[in-house]
């Protein structure tokens, strides 16, 4: 029985134990749950973190490769552009060098040609000297001509006076007024009186001139009639009444401003007459003649 008792007590014990243990477990349940929860959360967090870091690593690899790829591509582009710019700069520099040489050469040769300018200015000063000399000559010539005309006038007056004073000529018997015996030589008027022939005053005018011209022949200074020939020859006749135009074709044109044809036309242009002038001078007589013919014809028509 003891055994039973013992078992019984043991059952009791067991019950007690069972209860105690259950209550104990109930007591700890909350705490244990929280602990488990914490362990699980930690573990899961570890797992997720590991996964995330794994993903990050992979993303970095992808980004690294992509960025490297694009950067290399961009760099290649940049190098290309830089090379291109360098090349262009070089070419431009060379072009500038060529253009500089060429432009310098061209301008010196054709536009601001120092030697051409120098020779032009020298030529100009020579030409100026020449023109000055020619003009001085021309002036001298004109002066001589004027003097000559003056002298002719004076001489004419003298001869005219000699004609008027012809009665004062000395004769063999009696010396004239101008031939004083107290002078070593006769007065020049006396000599002139001797040369001049007496004419009746009425006819004096026409023959006196002729006589004068004959007398003047040897004494007059030889004066070239072609005054300043180089100037005259440029425009042919100047005081003729008819429009004789200078021959153009034979000499060179002056400027290059207009077409030669136009210049020629301008030169040959004669004013077109007004209507009033276009009727001819003998218009009236012609008209009368025509009328007369008509009248003559009319009767014949009747017949």
């Amino acid at each position, binding site marked *: 029985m003891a055994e039973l008792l013992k078992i019984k007590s043991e059952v009791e014990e067991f019950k007690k134990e069972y209860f105690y243990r259950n209550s104990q477990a109930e007591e700890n349940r909350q705490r244990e749950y929280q602990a488990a929860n914490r362990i699980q959360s930690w573990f899961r967090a570890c797992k997720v973190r590991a996964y995330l870091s794994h993903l990050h690593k992979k993303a970095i690899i992808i980004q690294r490769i992509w960025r490297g790829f694009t950067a290399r591509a961009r760099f290649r582009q940049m190098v290309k552009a830089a090379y291109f710019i360098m090349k262009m700069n070089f070419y431009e520099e060379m072009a500038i060098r060529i253009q500089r040489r060429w432009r310098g050469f061209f301008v010196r040769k054709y536009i601001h040609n120092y030697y051409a300018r120098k020779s032009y200015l020298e030529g100009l000063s020579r030409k100026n000297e*020449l023109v*000055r000399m020619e003009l001085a000559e021309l002036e001298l010539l004109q002066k001589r001509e004027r003097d000559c005309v003056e002298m002719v006038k004076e001489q004419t007056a003298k001869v005219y006076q000699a004609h008027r004073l012809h009665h004062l000529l000395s004769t063999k018997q009696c010396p004239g007024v101008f031939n004083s015996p107290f002078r070593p030589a006769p007065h020049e008027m006396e000599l002139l009186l001797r040369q001049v022939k007496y004419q009746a005053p009425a006819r004096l005018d026409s023959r006196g001139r002729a006589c004068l011209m004959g007398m003047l022949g040897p004494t007059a200074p030889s004066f070239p009639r072609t005054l300043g020939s180089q100037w005259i020859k440029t*425009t042919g006749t100047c005081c003729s009444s008819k*429009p004789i135009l200078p021959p153009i074709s034979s000499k060179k044109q002056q400027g290059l401003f*207009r077409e030669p044809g136009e210049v020629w036309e*301008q*030169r040959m242009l004669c*004013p077109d007459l007004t209507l*009033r002038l276009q009727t001819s001078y003998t218009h009236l007589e012609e008209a009368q003649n025509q009328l007369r013919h008509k009248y003559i014809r009319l009767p014949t028509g009747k017949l």
Partner: protein
Amino acid sequence: MSQRQIIQVFEQYQKSRFQFVQTVADLALRPQNIEILQNAGVMSLLRPLMLDVVPSIQQTAALALGRLADHSDDLAEAVVKEDILPQLVQSLGSQNRFYKKAAAFVLRSVAKHSPELSQAVVVSGGVDALVLCLEEFDPGVKEAAAWALGYIARHNASLSQSVVDAGAVPLLVLCLLEPEMALKRIAASTLSDISKHTPELAQTVVDVGAIAHLAQMILNPDAKLKRQVFSALSQISKHSVSLAEMVIEADIFPAAVACLKDQDDYVRKNVTTLMREVVKHTPELSQVIVNCGGMAAVIDYLGECRGNLRLPGIMMLGYVAAHSENLAMAVILSKGVPQLALCLSEEHEHHIKAATAWTIGQIGHHTPEHAKAVATSDLLIKLLELYMDASSSEDLQAKCKKALKSILQKCTYLPGLEPLLYDVPSNILKYVVCQFSKVLPNDSKARRLFVTSGGLKKVQEIDAEPGSSLQEHINAINSCFPEEIVRYYSPGYSEVLLQRLENYQPA
């Protein structure tokens, strides 16, 4: 009463009318009689005599009327008011040549005074009648008609246009071909009067072929004709490039230069005017004249004449020099600058001096070389004197200032610039100092000379406003010299030195 006695009365009346008209015509010759005649009512007495039955009385009456109108403006107006013009114009077509001459004379003396009176002649149909007279055979009538037309055309463009519209130009050109010298002269002067107003009128004159005929008369020995011919050519060429080219193409040039030695002053003046009018258009036209030696001749001409005759020559040089630096160099080489200096000192009239100053400016403003040529003949100082002279006219001062300014901006000839540092207004001084500041940094000899001649001292004495361009130029000059030298020449430096001496303690 017998028939003879009756006739005698008429004869006597006619004789006394004739005598009256003759006497009035003679009296009208003297200007002092005009007023008395006018007060005596000569107009109203002459008017019926214009309609007299005897042609010689008509003609003498017209002559008297012409002389009266010639002398005074009032009488010319009286002729218009008395309605004599229509009557004259009507009889111009029908009467004999002596009457025509007298009538043209009346029209001329009326038209001479003012544009209004000329307009009255045009309104009364005078121009058409005068053009009809140009077709007459008698050279005297043509001359009188051409003269009257010239006086009408002289006033303004519209009157001139009415003369052209009446068809006068071809007939005038035909008159140029007549043998009579007087007619040629008048025709040339009328053409000149017509073409002076507008390019269109000049073009009509050219279209008729006047240039070729005028060009042929350049070497005519008659001085008065030459005057008119050159004046006509210059009036034609002044309007446009194409007209000037037409004139040049007529081959007048070496021959016209010879006329610069003519005895007659006005021929020479008109030749110079012609050159001026041609030259002013383009560099090419100037080149033609320069190449044929025209410039040397004009420069010589400047030395031979005085006063207003010089003006066209001076202006021609200015126009030529203005075109290009080559042409300006040609002016310098032809010894133009000394001649201009002479003109500047000899002439007294301000407008001539102004033109000379302008010309000098045109010559000197191209390159330093040109400016040096001007500076070596001491023209800068003369221009400055004229600019500073209070009695100079405003235009002269303006021209002098402009010339000085343009020459100074190019001048690098320092000995010529140095005198301009003294007694100069600041607006000119600015340019002088600017030139120094440009030259001195690059020229060591000039720097040395600048110090020894006292220029640096003068520059230190200038008191410029800080910040102005003058001050900048002065600073630029100062920076070319060592600091001690600049300080040495600064005003008041000796006091500073003395101050230092007093403060100095020997050790």
